[in-house]
């Protein structure tokens, strides 16, 4: 299961790393990077993308794919980049805390 916030963060990260990309590409990328850990319906990416777009973190426009298919491309905006940095930072903080909290033995040694 993927909850919406995480999916949105992953989509933002993907767009930051790979540049403008279509929905299918983003879904594939998330699936690959998460090592199939998050087995998600590709379709769930679309409401998440729509939400990001409504919030102004990404923009979309129609373009042409590598194999000459018409596809809608999503692109990070400046606000989106800032949001990514903020959220990534929060995530790292949160995971560090959780990490420390869950493995106290390591700290003792």
């Amino acid at each position, binding site marked *: 299961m993927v909850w919406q916030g995480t999916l949105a963060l992953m989509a933002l990260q993907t767009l930051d790393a790979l540049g403008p990309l279509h929905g299918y590409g983003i879904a594939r990328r998330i699936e690959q990077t998460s090592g199939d850990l998050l087995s998600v319906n590709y379709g769930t990416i679309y*409401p998440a993308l729509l939400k990001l777009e409504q919030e102004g973190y990404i923009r979309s426009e129609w373009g042409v794919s590598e194999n000459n298919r018409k596809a809608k491309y999503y692109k990070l905006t400046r606000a989106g980049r800032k949001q990514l940095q903020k959220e990534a930072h929060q995530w790292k903080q949160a995971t560090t805390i959780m990490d420390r909290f869950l493995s106290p033995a390591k700290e003792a040694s």
Partner: protein
Amino acid sequence: MRPLRAWLVRILGLFGQNRRDREFAEELESHLQLHVEDGIRSGLTPAEARRAAIIRLGGIEPIKESHRDRRGIPFLETPARDLAYAARMLRRNPGFTATVVLTLGLGIGATTAIFTVVNAVLLRPLPYPEPDRLVYIAMSFGEPGDHAFSFTPDYTAWQNHNRTLSQIAGYRMFQANFTGGGEAERITGAYATRSLFPLLGVQPVMGRTFLPEEDRPGGPAVAILSHAFWKRRFGGDPSVIGKALTLDADTYTVVGVLPATFLIPGREESNYDLWVPFAISDSGKAKQILLQVVGRLKPGVGIGAVRSDLEPLMQQFRRKRSVVVSEWHERVAGGARRSLLIFLCTVSFVLLIACVNVANLLLSRAAAREKEMAVRRALGAGRGRVLRQLLTESTLLGLLAGAVGLALAYWGKNLLIALIARNLPALEPIRLDYRVLAFNLGLGLLTGVAFGLAPALQASKVQLNESLKEAGRGAADGHSGNRLRNLLVVFEVALAMVLLCGAGLLFKSFLRLRGIDPGFRSDRILTLNVNLTLSQYPKPLERTRFFQQAIERIAVLPGVEAVGAGTSLPLGGYSMTVSGLTIEGKPEADTAASLTMVSPDYLRTLAIPLVQGRYFSDSDREGSPSVVIVDESFAHRLFPGENCLGRRIQNPGRKTDWMTIVGVVRDIRSWPEQMASGEMYLCYLQAEQVHLRMTGGEMGSEMYLAIRTAGDPMSLAAAVRSQIALIDKSQPVHDMKTLDERRAGSLAPRRVSMLLVVAFAALALILGSIGIYGVVSYSVSRRTHEIGVRMALGAHQGQILGMVLRNGLGLIAAGVAIGLMASAGLTRLISSELWGVSATDPWTFAAVIVVLAASGSAACLLPAWRAARVDPTRALRYE
């Protein structure tokens, strides 16, 4: 800020849905193509690849749906879409829609109409500023019952020394003969203290209210007219202020006209034609007069504080007296609460039964629509989504029915008001206001959910695979569906049973009441009242002469058989009670009795039977020995086991005179509730020698005439009127009615309550029978195949008939059993409305069971008969 932006975009997303839908479809299509190409590259056939891509996507339609939800505002859009869909469904099934809307509309309409009355009487505040601060003040001698009046000396003390009321006012009803300008008329007016109009915040439409010097003894005689009286007697004359009018030979100057909406709330009709100042004397020696007192609480003072404030101020402690303070609205309307709530309960039972019927109809339809539901679920609609759609449909039905109900209530309320106006206190006119509208809307919504919930839950619970595979019959039609339907019918029968029991008890009480022998004959008798202006007829002899002339003139009119006159009538006027009578030879006797002064022919005209002795005759006049006729109760109470003829009673008017008992007549029972308590009749030809004084007039100035006619009594009305006008045209004829009308009038409130409840119960019975019919015939149609098999296996028609009947009668029996228990508990609530019948009268209950069983069986019989006539070969093919 970001979420705000998102919401803005979503609100914009409500527009241009089609374009966005198309665009997203394209995006999904390109997604799929990209995926399919990848699939083909990894070695799948195009078809396989596409299938894999769609599965991986999670289905096209569900994704579109969630995309759409995110794009706009689903909880706004979905209902709108559901509503449009529901409207389409209802339009496509006009028969079904009409049945539901009419059934429910009838129920809602009746409930709304009753609520309109409840609202006007119990909920709407009095039409004065700050109505919740108005209180009604009366004194009590510690006796139970109605406390309506106070005495003037107490009022004066309260007015001068109270600390809890910002204003206090008193008023008192009177009747007088109004003359001048057209026919003389007996009018009803009221004395009012100057403070009354300011206390109520009433401004006259013309002129002014009373001035400080006007409500003192000896003040100027002025009058304020009611709007209706001004229109009726002065033709709405705009220059009426300053004009004179005559009441009982006294002249008054008109100083004001009240607005048309002005009214003094009262338990009964209280239309005062005009108001004159209430001159209350401050001197301690003045006569005590009864009056009605109202007050306005000072800010921050609770109603409880008033009593302890006013009680010590009371003037007279000879007897144990206390002050009763109540909210004015409660005092006026409180008495109607019980019967109105009974109506409301009754009518809501009917509504509930209508809801049950509609729920059953929906359940059957749900079974038929099961496939549609299955398809919806298969296409990705969640159970909640389907539930919401179905509830939208039923709510729409409820609202439509509400609209029909509102229209019915609007037209029906006048009928209802005409029917029950006599049972209601005098308050503002009854009308539809925002509370009624809110109630109606709420009722529509509530019934929509109430009858829709069970069927919707049932229908949304489809077994996908089963339903799609099966041709027609599935889960909703299975055991749980049937059980629910049966439960609803049992419930419905139980409700109808309770209503019928209540109606039966009221009906029986009414019959009991009407069957009472009143002791006189009321058919073919015209009655009327003449109240002589005392200043024109100061002596008893003059008054007697007036009425003797009237009797002689009327007696010779064609069609008149007998004429009598009495100071009161059974069912008319106020009888007078005298106490402390002395009976010759019985010094210790308890001698209170009511007293009526009558003309010689009065008893004969009313056909009050003579038991012993003789009636009065023309020779019982002034100068001959004083005589009296008593009734049986009087005779039995004072002369048990003795012959009372010839015994003597001391004349209460003149202690040296003794009245001889010359006759004993049968008791009369004017009011059904009244128990005979002893009655004395005096002959009015001896008025001078036995005449009695009483407050507010003298005995014999007001007389009722009773005229026995050969034909329709009312046809003589005009002739009688003109004969009296020929004697003295300034003495108005008043309160002209047939005696039958008076009798019916005394039963009218009970009759109306009974009729309403019986009508509702009949409606419940009809709806209940329709419900039974619906369920049984539905089950027959569903079991046609089974019945065919049974017949093919050798069952004959009688067996099939019995099977179906057993099915229906079982439901009725269960309903009756539950209804019986509920009735036994609930009819106790109306026991105060019953007369001569116990709240659990077994005969009534038995009759109700018979009626229910009979109409229930009739409802089962038709489908059962149809089942028995099933053609097995046809039935086996039936699917």
